[in-house]
């Protein structure tokens, strides 16, 4: 993949960045539920835990609110990875949002892999408000796995001039 066909916002910053694997810092969109996982991320920050700057957090009311549309929109816009996290089973603020989400997510992940998305681009997890350490660990792991794949190409939409969608 040539740098000119990358979406504008994540082309290599200067001409010396020729080795993509060295220069590649993935962009990962994280959908976090406000009650548990977002609070977990907040705790990681307050506790000054180190984790890669690859993540872009989007706060949502509940993991049950995260639709296939949102995930696919992140992918077509050029996210190298997507992380989705909600409250642990039994902890949902709305009782059952995460249980419903769990059924939808497994079907979506399987379907996307079936049509050729790399398995390591899309991750789901449960993180509670007290799990700052776990949040940092998950971001490290997801970043490593996505970095191993290199920049996203499949289902990323490009305009004919090579810019993003």
């Amino acid at each position, binding site marked *: 993949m040539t740098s000119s066909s990358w979406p504008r916002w994540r082309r290599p910053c200067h001409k010396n960045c020729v080795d993509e694997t060295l220069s590649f810092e993935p962009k990962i969109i994280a959908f976090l539920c406000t009650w548990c996982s977002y609070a977990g991320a907040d705790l990681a920050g307050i506790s000054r835990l180190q984790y890669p700057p690859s993540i872009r957090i989007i706060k949502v009311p509940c993991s049950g609110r995260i639709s296939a549309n949102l995930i696919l929109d992140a992918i*077509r816009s050029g996210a190298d990875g997507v992380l989705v996290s909600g409250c642990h089973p039994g902890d949902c603020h709305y009782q059952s949002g995460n*249980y*419903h989400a769990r059924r939808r997510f*497994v*079907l979506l992940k399987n*379907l996307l892999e*079936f049509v050729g998305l790399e398995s390591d681009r899309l991750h789901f997890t449960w993180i509670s408000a007290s799990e700052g350490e*776990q949040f940092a660990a998950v971001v490290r792991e997801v970043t490593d796995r996505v970095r191993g794949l290199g920049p996203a190409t499949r289902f990323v*939409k490009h305009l004919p001039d090579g810019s993003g969608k």
Partner: protein
Amino acid sequence: MSQLNETITRALRERAGDLLAAGTVDAFVGFTTGTVPMVMRPLVARTPEEARQFVWNSFCVLNPANFLPELVQTLSGEGQVRVGVVATGCWSRNMVVQIQENRLRREQIHIVGIASRGMVLPRRVRALFAGREITRVEEKEHELVVSGPGFSETVSRWSVVRDNCRTCSHPNPVLFDEMLTSHSTRNPVADRFDQIEEIERMTPEERYQWFQGEVATCIRCYACRNACPLCYCPTCFVDESRPQWVGKSLDPVDVSLFHILRAYHCAGRCTDCGACEAACPMGIRMRLFTRKLEKDVLALFGTEAGMDPGQPQPLATYGLDDPQDFMLRG
């Protein structure tokens, strides 16, 4: 006409006529011969005389469940109604789905069941006679006699039956008020998900190439969506513009996302009736995507769509111990 179809056609005309005459139903939905060979036309009969036009054969590929709720609603302007309808296994399961989704009430329909022998995909027949004009197709017990200017040839019926009918697991209606035929004893195929497993065994790169090739010729006409009894959203996601989840162009990513989302919306609801594939002018096999979901729903949640009107749909409910090994940490 084959003996069997003739018997069913005769019984259908008679039963529909009786039900209409007795006032048990206010209208009856079936099929009649269209103007083009191998294309059947849906027919709504309001009188016993009209019911005499019903025909049953292997070309009834449209799914009457598709327009049933709207028909009931339209007729309801005249008060309480009940609509009679013919149904094979998959069609009856679509009606179950509609009852689960409150699109229909059980007492609004009177289902006359027919055990399906499998429907023929006209595209398959036309492909056999590429370049020649087919003006007439006559169905015999196990053959089709295809004729046109200067030719008349026989093809085996089963060789041109639709893929979904070949792997059908429920040829008999699961919900019916009466049966026109005896129950089918057709053996379900040993492994109906063979085709899906074959794709699953490919590498991600191969699967990506396969998928791109599979949808490459889609012209975004949405005939597949329009033929599907599950697709009744007042504003379909493909028509939404704020935000626009899927671009309207023929860009491969737009086309891919359309097919991914359309299939995903059918998860736990699709009965593999094959109306989508039969309607597609480009021969796209979009059932491969819905069947992947069907396979997973069965494997993960142990259910099949439209089997019991009293049960919730798999994605409208959950289990406390649903599988979650796909997650990063349990």
